[in-house]
């Protein structure tokens, strides 16, 4: 190794490292921002900002007020289940007595179209819901042609295309009006209907006593069914619901801590 080679190495490597530092200059700007963030906000504020999508800040507000720290509310999001509990503790037991409906609108608590059905063959239809829905309530059917004013409809539903046992089956007489949607509701809505389904399809057999062709069939349901719940807290699009029976128990047992919890968080 001679001196000139040394000088070449010095110049080459120094220049390269200088370029590395310049290329990563954003890192220094980020560092300044990070230091400012640490000096002006608390850990909890920063965590709430980091997990805004999970609505961590709202969940933490409710969780901190719970008298029983071994339970965790059921958390519901617009699309699918996200494990919010893991940010608190794995040990917590999820309770259905308290439901946090996060980042949701009023329509998410009401009956809506939850999926369009696709004709597979003959009278077999498939329904993909993709996201999470509490309740399946029925169908909205639009006939292309009607051969009678009243038709008898037999609807059989299977949870998958491989299932042999139907989840539900019913026979209903409905008026048939061409190109006009007719809603058919199940006698017993199906709860805990669609969770973590992705694109796995439900199978429907829809038969009628007359030769009816369907233009469009939609599934009706509720994203978050709060019919047995009472809204006690609302902050923007975040809602806390308590089960009516649970509120009754709090009232009956006159539990001081839970009563305080209720009074602390009730704002509606």
């Amino acid at each position, binding site marked *: 190794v001679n001196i000139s080679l040394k000088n070449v190495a010095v110049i080459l490597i*120094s220049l390269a*490292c200088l370029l590395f530092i310049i290329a990563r200059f954003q890192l220094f700007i980020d560092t300044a921002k990070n*230091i400012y963030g*640490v000096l002006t*906000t608390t850990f909890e504020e*920063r965590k709430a900002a980091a997990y805004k999508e999970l609505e961590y800040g709202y969940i933490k507000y409710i969780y901190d007020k719970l008298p029983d720290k071994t339970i965790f509310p059921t958390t519901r999001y617009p699309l699918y289940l996200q494990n919010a509990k893991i940010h608190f*503790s794995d040990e917590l037991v999820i309770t259905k007595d308290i439901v946090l409906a996060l980042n949701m609108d009023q329509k998410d608590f009401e009956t809506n179209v939850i999926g369009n059905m696709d004709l597979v063959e003959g009278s077999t239809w498939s329904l993909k819901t993709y996201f999470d829905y509490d309740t399946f309530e029925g169908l909205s059917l639009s006939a292309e042609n009607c051969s009678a004013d009243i038709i008898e409809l037999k609807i059989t539903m299977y949870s998958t295309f491989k299932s042999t046992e139907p989840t539900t089956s019913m026979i209903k007489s409905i008026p048939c009006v061409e190109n006009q949607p007719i809603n058919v509701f199940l006698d017993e809505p199906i709860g805990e209907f669609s969770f973590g389904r992705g694109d796995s399809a439900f199978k429907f057999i829809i038969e009628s006593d007359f030769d009816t062709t369907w233009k469009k069939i939609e599934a009706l349901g509720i994203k978050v069914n709060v019919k047995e719940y009472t809204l006690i807290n609302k902050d923007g699009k975040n809602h806390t619901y308590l089960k009516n029976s649970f509120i009754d128990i709090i009232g009956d047992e006159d539990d001081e801590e839970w009563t305080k919890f209720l009074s602390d968080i009730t704002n509606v």
Partner: protein
Amino acid sequence: VILQMFEILLATIAIIVIPSIIGYILPTENTKPITRWLLSILFIGTLYTVFHGFGLPKISLIVTIFVLIAIGLYRLIQQRRSKIILKKFSIDSMLIIAVIAVLGLITWSNVLNNLFLEWDAVAIWLSKARDIYNWKEFAGITIVNYPNLGTGLWAYAMDFSSFIDALGRLIFPTVFIALAGGLLEQKIHTIKELRLKVLVSFIVLGLFIFFIHPGVWNGYQDILLGSVAAYSALLLSNSFNSLISLTQKKWDIAVGMALLGSVYLIKNEGLFLILIILFSYLVALIVQKRKRLRYLIKGNRGFVFRSAFILVLPAVLWTLILVTNKIDPGQIQGEAFSIRGVLAIGEKLDHIKPIAKALVVQTWLFLPVILLAMVTTLISFRLRFLRSLNIFFWLVIILHTAFISFAFLATNADISWHIGTAFSRLINQHQLFYIMLIVINFVAILELSNRKEEK
């Protein structure tokens, strides 16, 4: 905000001060401060793994750590009396501290401000750390067959500060920074001129800043694994240096083996990196000594046996923990890998294209550093001790790249998903070797030129 400053201070004491004090138990004449710190912090993590794994009460662990602190303090006071520490404080130390401070500021501020963690970091590693923090029964912790050194350290930092995951997560970038400091600590004293010392410090800083990516602070264990493995190789490579005394070389090999062995306690796949480093080291040693392995062992049997014992001890302890808790020690990964999957590799040749593409992307992203490593290797290759060192490090890089490619060829999981989620993390595990190559070769070139100038 004031309270959180106090919490950060406590975490700093847990992560920096306590292991530094415990490090004084080690002989200071042979072990430099950053190496002592690294050994101590990994020892604390091993203690967490062992005490928790064997179901010993947490209080016994805390007492053990306090006893170690007391012994370390005693040794520190002894040495302060003999003023050893003051003598050692020099311009070298100031430059090392400056590099550590800049890297520390960049990484720590990021950990403390950006609290978002990727899914695996939350669901696996933080969850494990929380289980250890809560001293949950071993068999019931998250993914029980994944080892616990990193998560044990995460729990330790939270134990000694407060239960805030970011404070525990500070451990990982700190070990990464320790490699930068350790690299300077090992090499800077060989340079005579101040301006060149400053230049080398600047180069180390530049290279480590270039390497920084979210994996340094996002809670994944790969940065811990890669940094410890690289540090062990750095110490092992001292055995090629003729300017280092035999006693020091032996000590560095022993410490290197201890660090290398602990890699198995960080992640299961660390086993393969251990084997690759060990194999590459032996090849380089044979090349340098021009002797067969059995002649190298001959006459050093006691030392070789002790080093081998240090190397395998963590793996033995971990296997014992699994067996004691009735966990199958043969189950080292999830569903992605199996013997059947490896045997059926012929049916997975369609994996080659996405693997090659991922390799090209990773090489492109790190290309400037790879090129610099190549250039410095070419310049210094005619020097005998550097030749062995270069063979050692380049073999690690090549074999580890080959191993990763093979692993993805054999995966049972969807190849696009698997490459997307894991490929860069695994490649990062050996990328620090490029940086070490550049720095060590460059320092040797400077040193040799200086010697020529003096003549």
